[in-house]
């Protein structure tokens, strides 16, 4: 399925969609969005790029197996949940750095948790898509 139109469009769409996914991730705390939907959009970006060219191209682009993103994301989320324990607070208490930063807004454990979810979703989705795509090649 390599058409010229899709191929050209995908080259421009992928960076845009990736950027959009980060935007969705960051606005997620008070507005609709967050790690899960951001992760899905990021994986859509990569999958569209992969199907427009060849599925191997995502692998070349990523340079690592997306499966590794699952434990990386999970450990970030775990860290976000456990961090308050070191400050003598119950688990999952939101800790926030004082002050606000441009673009990102305030930084806290909720953001760390969302980033973890983002990675887990990208990793899991791409792993599933890769396994299905590789099955197809054999047939």
């Amino acid at each position, binding site marked *: 399925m390599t058409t010229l139109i899709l191929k050209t469009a995908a080259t421009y769409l992928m960076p845009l969609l990736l950027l959009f996914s980060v935007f969705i991730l960051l606005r997620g705390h008070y507005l609709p969005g967050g790690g899960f939907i951001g992760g899905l959009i990021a994986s859509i970006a990569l999958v569209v790029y992969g199907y427009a060219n060849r599925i191997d191209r995502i692998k070349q682009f990523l340079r690592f197996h997306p*499966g590794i993103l699952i434990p990386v994301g*999970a450990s970030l989320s*775990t860290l976000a949940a*456990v961090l308050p324990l070191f400050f003598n607070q119950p*688990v999952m208490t939101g800790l926030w750095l004082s002050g606000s930063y441009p673009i990102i807004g305030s930084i806290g454990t909720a953001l760390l948790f969302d980033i973890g979810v983002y990675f887990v979703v990208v990793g899991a989705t791409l792993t599933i898509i890769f396994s299905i795509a590789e099955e197809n090649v054999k047939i």
Partner: protein
Amino acid sequence: MTDNLLILPVIIQLVIAVISLFFWSRTNYQRLSSIVGNVIFLAVSFILFFYVKENGIMVSQGGNWPAPFGITFVLDLFSASMLVITGLSGLAVSIFTAGSMSRRRALFVFFPIYHFLLLGISGSFIAGDLFNLYVWFELIIIASFGLITLGGGRRQLEGALKYVTLNLVASTLFLTSIAFVYGLTGSLNLADLAVKIPEVENQDLVSIAALLFFVGLGIKTAVFPMYFWLPASYHTPMSAISAIFGGLLTKVGVYALIRVFSLFFLPDSYIGTVISAIAALTLIMGAMGAFIQKDVRKVFSWLIVCHIGFMIAGLGIFSTVALAGAVLYLFHDIIIKTNIFMVSGLLYRINGAHTFKFIGGLYEHYPKLSFLIAIPLFSLIGIPPLSGFWPKILLIEGGIQGFDYFIVAAILLGSFVTLVTIGKLWVTAVWSEQKQVKYVKHFIHFKQLSKAQRIAYVFPIAFLSVVSLFFGFGAFWMLDIANRIAEELINPELYIQSILQFQ
């Protein structure tokens, strides 16, 4: 030690799961992290247990939101001892799997899923919120779907299909009853519900919610008449997985039933009668099912159903003595059921089959192993002074005190049929002559295993046997704990107060 640390067992399981996900294809590191992690889990559970025993209930409000609104985590003596028991059988299964699981199977991410399962189990013990309890149960069943289909043989998928379907139905009913309760009281916190449920005007609706809850958890717990999925699926996965399923999964349901029905859905005359009748029927049907089976793992699966009846009976009688018996039986049952499924794995490694037709000659060739497996098997029957004996005495005493003679009869019948069934198994597997070893494809006999693997087979069985022996000979100490737990369950004021004080 601050109360916030009660979450540590859950965090430890989560961390082990994540660490073993990092070692995706390096199964040896996964085995190591699983064993080391479970040792740490057990140590932490013991520390928490003794802390709770000395200082009373620990409460932590997740996210620092006050009690009826946020998610409460509670650790009282009951949950703390359940964590210790989970740690004991979890560690045994870790070692057993490390030895018995082939690399090919371990590559299907066994260890991460296993630790997610333990995460769900230990989470449900510390949940102080009905919906939170539901979420932990979901985690448990999703992880168990993964484990029961691991390897993906045809028979396994058939068993898994029944298991999955019925568990989904059960979850739906469970969720419906939670919705009922929330509609009636506007709260989901267990302690808050204990205050609000008696004030509800329409007590009939409360009874309906209670029965829905009982059916939903009853399917997961495998009580009469909703137990058919259990003997149809538990004999299909590999022994290590059956061991953790048989030991812990149904017992989490029993734990939740005891917790909820002692706290707010109090077994009054109507619900109490229903529970007692169901307990008696579970005992009878489970015993009958076990009696006619001719396959080691099927016998054990049916015995799980049968013995669930003991614990539910204690709940149905609902007195301090009977509840102490139910709690003590729960502890004993987790250890013993994990152990006997590992024994079935060992018997398979020696005989190449699970059916009575092909097993035999254990005493002839492995006299020491025969003595070893005598401990779990005879504890299961409850021969005094082994561990199964004491809880049954308490249950019968409670039944007689409460004039529930029907239950007492069912308990005696259940014990008797267990005796006959295990006796039959013992004669077939141990005393009869060795039959032709049935070599199936890729079968590796016990003798062909390396020394380390053989130790991994035998050590966990010995370890849990020692625990059972302690339950039997240290009965005085165990009875003390069980009585305290039963007192706390019957008089939950302290539990309620410690949670709601944050208001």
